[in-house]
């Protein structure tokens, strides 16, 4: 046992220590430091947005709204329009979602239902988490040497037979919107799986029980009760995955072909905002830097809108399912 705490004898020797707490008497410098950190964090966001807008200002001033509707991007002539890139961004992310959603949802169901022994389910879950940990640039490298040849081979067949459809018009390039979308799908799969899974496992067991008791089979229960109950979470997972896909840079930059020409075909090169930034920033100067900053601001705006929408849906989900518990 210590006989003293903080220098004050435990035995009452006649004088009481003042009853004001120590932190009232001595200013808490640590608290000050923490407060400062908070303010810096908040200012940082303002600084990021401010800096980008500031540097984009000359381009915003010069091109205005025409920047968004313009279809030409040629730095040599000082003409900057991002419409094809915007379309490429949305299109590639949407395609990726189209591929990833069924797969991701299947995996989420697979690891939340008891189709197979738990060990195998945990393994699949581990594998999907691993997918999330692989760096984007490694996906890009893999895409260059695996997916590009595949898309080139089967894309040619596709355009030979279905070339009359604008979506599959030839010639088929390896570096194409389709290639980028396929790899993107793989990259957003963990997002979809993780969020869908967590919204599936919070579906109360009583609902599952209720459905089985009415004579439903497992899949009637899944399709009729569990998926509808979890659907806001699944929608949120899709929205957030869409946001992630729009922001993905490296793999897309390596695979999409970086062409600012408008094309309907999935088999022709395209571009996305982030890939445009990745490819042009290091060699840009003057008004081109400003134009790229403008594009960056657009990308921020797009992803923010999508992410906030996703977060709102997700919060709605939590509120909706809380009634059930």
């Amino acid at each position: 046992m210590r006989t003293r705490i903080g220098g004050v004898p435990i035995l009452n020797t006649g004088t009481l220590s003042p009853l004001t707490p120590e932190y009232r008497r001595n200013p808490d410098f640590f608290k000050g430091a923490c407060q400062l950190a908070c303010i810096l964090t908040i200012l940082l966001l303002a600084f990021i947005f401010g800096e980008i807008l500031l540097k984009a200002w000359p381009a915003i001033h010069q091109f205005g709204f025409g920047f968004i509707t313009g279809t030409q991007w040629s730095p040599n002539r000082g003409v900057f329009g991002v419409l094809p890139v915007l379309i490429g961004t949305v299109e590639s992310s949407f395609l990726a979602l189209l591929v990833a959603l069924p797969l991701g949802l299947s995996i989420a169901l697979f690891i939340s239902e008891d189709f197979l022994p738990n060990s195998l389910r945990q393994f699949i879950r581990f594998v999907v988490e691993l997918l999330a940990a692989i760096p984007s640039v490694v996906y890009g490298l893999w895409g260059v040497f695996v997916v590009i040849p595949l898309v080139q081979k089967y894309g040619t067949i596709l355009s030979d037979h279905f070339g009359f459809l604008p979506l599959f018009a030839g010639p088929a390039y390896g570096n194409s919107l389709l290639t980028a979308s396929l790899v993107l799908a793989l990259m957003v799969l963990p997002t979809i799986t993780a969020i869908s899974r967590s919204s599936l496992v919070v579906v109360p067991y009583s609902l599952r029980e209720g459905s089985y008791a009415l004579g439903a089979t497992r899949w009637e229960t899944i399709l009729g009760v569990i998926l509808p109950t979890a659907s806001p979470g699944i929608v949120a997972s899709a929205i957030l995955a869409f946001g992630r896909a729009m922001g993905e840079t490296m793999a897309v930059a390596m695979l999409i072909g970086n062409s600012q020409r408008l094309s309907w075909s999935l088999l022709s090169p395209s571009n996305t905002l982030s890939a445009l930034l990745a490819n042009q920033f290091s060699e840009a100067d003057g008004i081109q830097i400003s134009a790229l900053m403008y594009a960056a601001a657009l990308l921020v705006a797009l992803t923010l809108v999508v992410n906030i929408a996703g977060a709102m849906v997700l919060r709605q989900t939590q509120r909706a399912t809380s009634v059930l518990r």
Partner: protein
Amino acid sequence: MSNDYTSSEAHPIQVSHETARPYELSDVVPPSETNFIKVDDFRFFYGKKEVLHGINLEIPSRRVTSFIGPSGCGKSTLLRNFNRMNELIPGVRHEGDITIHGTSIFDPSVEVIALRRRIGMVFQKSNPFPMSIYGNIVYPLRIAGQGDRSMLDETVERCLRSAALWDEVKDRLHESALGLSGGQMQRLCIARAIASRPEILLMDEPCSALDPIATAKVEELIIELKRDFTIIIVTHNMHQASRVSELTAFFYLGNLVEFDETRKIFTNPSKLQTEEYITGRFG
């Protein structure tokens, strides 16, 4: 799994396999009522743990039978065996047999889907699906592939009327069921349970989460429903058992201690354990 079901002739009820007290059911149920549930030396295991020790029981049709007993006595476990809900839990197994209408429910030719359509179940906590009131009731019909609109409409009205809920919700059938009050939700679950015209209705403490007024409504409903259904209700509330049921089975530690007319159980039980439980000395 054993299918040693032998015959469906009316046996004297075995109160407990050790201390059998022969007793004739005919004073409550006319012998012609052959539509009954027969539990034959039924044992049930969670893993290695035996939770039901050879239950023998015959439940007559179109009566309300209540299962009472302290927590963990196995009454809910037995109830959940009638529609084989326990099979959803991994690592369970059973011995003995349960027959309904003379058919073993564990017979390989019995489809568990069909079984559960014939046996409705109402749970302790109401579990309306997060869809409309209408959607909830037609769910069991839709999964069975019935899409005829007028037939569905007719069923919704019939079931809601049976569950004494029609007047309260008829103007908002297509609103979410989650907007109902607790008591309404539970009555909705009852309406849903009878939508596929089952013959037996299992109720697992249906009122334990309800306030007294809602409880009274559900109890009224139970008495009303026994004209058409064989009802088995598990309850902790002894007053409830005495109010709604004609027959009462008292379980203790996985054994059926006594099964008799409710009136008799509550006024003149033949077993000391039953009496002690009824009078609140344990449990």
